[in-house]
């Protein structure tokens, strides 16, 4: 997929939660390049003396009709905070699209069946790429089931959008919304294990590493394939610097180019996670 460096215009910026903003970017009147769910962009942060390198951000949604690229930002440090301070109209220099993206199942016609159920498990800002993926699954005739985990109800993001796409199972650590506990403790897993619910064709996960490791173990137990989207520290985002490597069954590979999405069977997650 051809990569571009574009000065995208910030059409709007919306504060979703105290530490989360949604950026809607457009390419002037020109169309946006092709992009796939699970891919990411590298954003140059303007006017931020402390931010030297670009920041990798997942593609949250591509609205082809309006020509909008959505980025969901969790403000954790200088760079993301500077992004959250931007005003509509600002230009954002973005390299895109980067990485491989989630495996896209072929289109199916007719109703959903057990064979085209997909579970998408996200935690925190890791839910960002799952929205784009969910939309693509629906467009291809599949049935996404979302499992969204958060510390508390107020940390759940874009819930209405997920609900518009399919079933949403929520867990919160404090129990304010949905079931209490971690995503891996949701009753859906038990139902799958007990055969009450059908096994998904594939599980996609994105979020904090410990969560993804736990999800991947669950999938191993259930004998379900799983893809995880990693968030290693990056410098170039292009496969050139070899800074972002993850240890896999083929040795150290670049998360920015060979990933960020990996079948968990390829990963040698550290046991400690």
């Amino acid at each position: 997929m051809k990569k571009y460096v574009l000065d995208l215009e910030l059409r709007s910026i919306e504060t979703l939660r105290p530490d989360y903003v949604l950026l809607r970017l457009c390419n002037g009147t020109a169309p946006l390049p092709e992009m796939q769910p699970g891919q990411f962009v590298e954003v140059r942060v303007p006017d931020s003396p402390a931010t030297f390198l670009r920041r990798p951000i997942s593609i949250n949604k591509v609205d082809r009709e309006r020509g909008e690229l959505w980025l969901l930002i969790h403000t954790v440090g200088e760079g993301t905070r500077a992004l959250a301070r931007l005003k509509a109209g600002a230009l954002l220099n973005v390299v895109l699209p980067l990485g491989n993206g989630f495996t896209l199942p072929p289109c199916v016609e007719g109703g959903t069946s057990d064979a085209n159920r997909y579970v998408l498990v996200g935690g925190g800002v890791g839910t960002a790429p799952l929205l784009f993926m969910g939309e693509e699954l629906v467009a291809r005739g599949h049935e996404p089931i979302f499992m969204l985990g958060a510390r508390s109800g107020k940390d759940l993001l874009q819930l209405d959008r997920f609900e518009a796409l399919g079933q949403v199972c929520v867990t919160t650590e404090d129990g304010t919304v949905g079931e209490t506990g971690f995503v891996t403790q949701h009753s859906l897993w038990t139902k799958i294990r007990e055969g009450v619910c059908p096994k998904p064709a594939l599980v996609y996960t994105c979020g904090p590493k410990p969560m993804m490791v736990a999800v991947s173990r669950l999938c191993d137990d259930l004998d379900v394939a799983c893809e995880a989207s990693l968030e290693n520290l990056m410098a170039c985002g292009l496969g050139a610097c070899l800074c972002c490597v993850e240890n896999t069954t083929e040795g150290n590979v670049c998360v920015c180019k060979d990933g960020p999405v990996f079948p968990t069977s390829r990963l040698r997650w550290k046991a400690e996670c």
Partner: protein
Amino acid sequence: MNCSLLTKIGDLQLQNPVMTASGTFGYGLEFADFVDLNTLGGIIVKGTTLEPRQGNPYPRMAETAQGMLNCVGLQNKGVDYFCNVIYPQVAGLKTNVIVNVSGNSPETYAECARRIAELDHIPAIELNISCPNVKKGGMAFGVTPEGAASVVKAVRAAYPKTLIVKLSPNVTSIADIARAAESEGADAVSLINTLMGMAIDAERQRPILSIGTGGLSGPAVKPVALRMVWQVYEAVNIPVVGLGGIMNATDAIEFMLAGASAVEIGTANFIDPTVTTKVIAGIKEYAERHKLKSITEIIGAAHGSVS
């Protein structure tokens, strides 16, 4: 007004002084969507060793004030992979593809160079005697004149084409190391490689990089790099290739004024993948504004102005 951007590194002709620094531009191919590779003065590919190497564990990178640390540790698939898989993809490029060579003994350096000498479309190698991120070899050779001499001597005997020796800045007198490389037959020196540095995570109370230390690059190091290019230019008679923190054409010009016959752009490629194209255009614009016939007129031109 038409200014020639042609420059030379020994016998090697460059269509302009702008090359890419090893380890920051992959094999060039990674940037083909952003830059017309054929317009570059040269592409210096990833550090290559005789045997494949896995490099250091993750994390390998830390951001610093106007710079970054890396401890990649020469991860590469070995010289045979380069010859068999990469070379066919880059041999047709109309620019100088130069291989950056590393090793852990004069013999492995020389053997790696010997294999690359057989590739018709690789006109030069850059000898990395200065990588701070590998325990054995690498920088050890680059920090004493004797160490540098021993590697350069072995490689010179094995490699007939243009031999550029890349120097470490982590030394008391870089001029001494440059002279040692020159006296063993290097055709040029390039500098600087990364400055050895460290980043610490105050909350987790430990270094950020997996092996503790790493190499510092980016604008932060430019003043040190300029000073060293200046010193080495005064110390040797072979051409100097300058790098370290170049982000734009003005930076590149500064290196040439300090004595560089050509420059390399490293970390800047991460900040702007199209930077090399902009630097070439900016150098051209500068040359025209200053009414130069040839960009080579400014090489070392800042010398003599200071006592």
